């Protein structure tokens, strides 16, 4: 036990935990994205509803949800702890510091992109998770999504959050592999290409969802009757 505490207390230990939780959250993002592609199916949301019912009724998924919550909490907590330690390790700043000459933008703003994504996450859960799982409004989730995405303001916020998520993962994904010691000359191109799925393709695909409901999809009669959270 004491060894685990020593590992956690060390700088590399914290970073390894951040990498593991971050990459675990990436697998969730992939699952969430693939499942939500059903929103594009023009069948009045039947396939999507069947998918959400399958998730709700599946004990394995409910069990994994606990790990997902732990993953989120640990990743955010460690992110803040590491950021604070880094901030306070140089009390006196340089008068001139040309960090941007040597480093990509995504690597310098990870804490801020992460913080914005966290705010988005809270609003996102309040829009869809709370009404469908906690207050149990009995409104089909598909209609809830279709209705929420009718607001250009909400869509704009959603797309901005996805752009920032893309930036977060552009740095975070390869950074996770580096921290786990899995990045070297042989695999770095592969990790970079694989990372594009997470920082480019998935956020792009997610961004198409509000645009689809705003510009293409026509609201069904049931979705017309519900309010937006």
């Amino acid at each position, binding site marked *: 036990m004491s060894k685990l505490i020593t590992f956690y207390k*060390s700088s590399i230990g914290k970073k390894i935990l951040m990498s593991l939780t971050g990459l675990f959250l990436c697998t969730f993002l992939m699952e969430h994205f693939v499942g939500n592609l059903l929103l594009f199916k023009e069948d009045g949301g039947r396939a999507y509803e069947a998918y959400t019912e399958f998730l709700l009724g599946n004990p394995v998924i409910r069990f994994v949800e606990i790990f997902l919550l732990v993953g989120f909490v640990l990743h955010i907590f460690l992110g803040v702890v590491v950021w604070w330690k880094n901030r306070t390790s140089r009390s006196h700043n340089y008068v001139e510091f040309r960090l941007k000459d040597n480093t990509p933008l995504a690597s310098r703003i990870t804490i801020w992109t992460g913080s914005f994504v966290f705010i988005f996450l809270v609003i996102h859960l309040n829009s869809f998770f709370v009404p469908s799982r906690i207050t149990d409004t009995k409104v089909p989730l598909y209609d809830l999504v279709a209705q929420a995405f009718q607001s250009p303001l909400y869509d704009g916020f959603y797309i901005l959050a996805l752009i920032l998520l893309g930036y977060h993962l552009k740095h975070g994904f390869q950074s996770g592999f580096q921290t786990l010691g899995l990045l070297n000359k042989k695999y770095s191109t592969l990790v970079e290409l694989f990372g594009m799925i997470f920082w480019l393709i998935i956020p792009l695909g997610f961004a198409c969802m509000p645009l689809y409901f705003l510009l293409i999809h026509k609201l069904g009669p049931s979705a017309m009757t519900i309010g937006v959270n």
Partner: protein
Amino acid sequence: MNITLKVWRQRNPNDTGRLVTYEAKNVSTHMSFLEMLDVVNNDLVKKGEDPIAFDHDCREGICGSCGLMINGRAHGPGRGIATCQLHMRGFKDGEVIVVEPWRANAFPIIKDLVVDRTAFERIMQAGGYTSAKTGGVPDGNAVLVPKPVAEDAMDAASCIGCGACVAACPNSSAMLFVAAKVSQLALLPQGKAERTQRVLAMVDQMDKEGFGNCSNNYACEAECPKEIKVTHIARMNREYLRANLVEK
């Protein structure tokens, strides 16, 4: 060429310090940056003022003594060079140059541009060595080391411990320095025996010294005068993970 220098002057560790402007006239483009500072110091001495304190020794990029933040870049503009290898031809006539010391809580300022880098020494004392008695020079083929491994270890061994990685890092992290030392020894047969204790002890000491965490933005690699690669950091992370799994 004429140069305007804005140099960090700080009388002692407790002084607040400030930037002081100096005009360097008729600077030769063939001078190294440190020679230019020597000339400025000569003028200051003649005027009865305190010369600017800065670290230097070999002046050929191998001792790791010099290290200045020049215009916001560790060791100034240019890649793969220490401050002593920087020449005035890299600057424009009339340019304003800001000169600051390395800044990190683990590197407290002693005076002006001189910082205390003994934190690196303590990290080395924690495990940056092999304790095996190696005896005399072994036969050339007695201990076989594949060429790519030897090259990789040699690249890591070229670290001169100047501290530019810490200075250039937004988090004042010493990971590139420690990784170079861990990597160099972990790659070679003589160093492998103590690899577990070494990485644990060196990382522990690095954390105790108050360096920040690595956030993988690789500013260290870009500013390292010996162009040490961040793949060594990946190796140290691997070594650390391995050490935690196999440690008895």
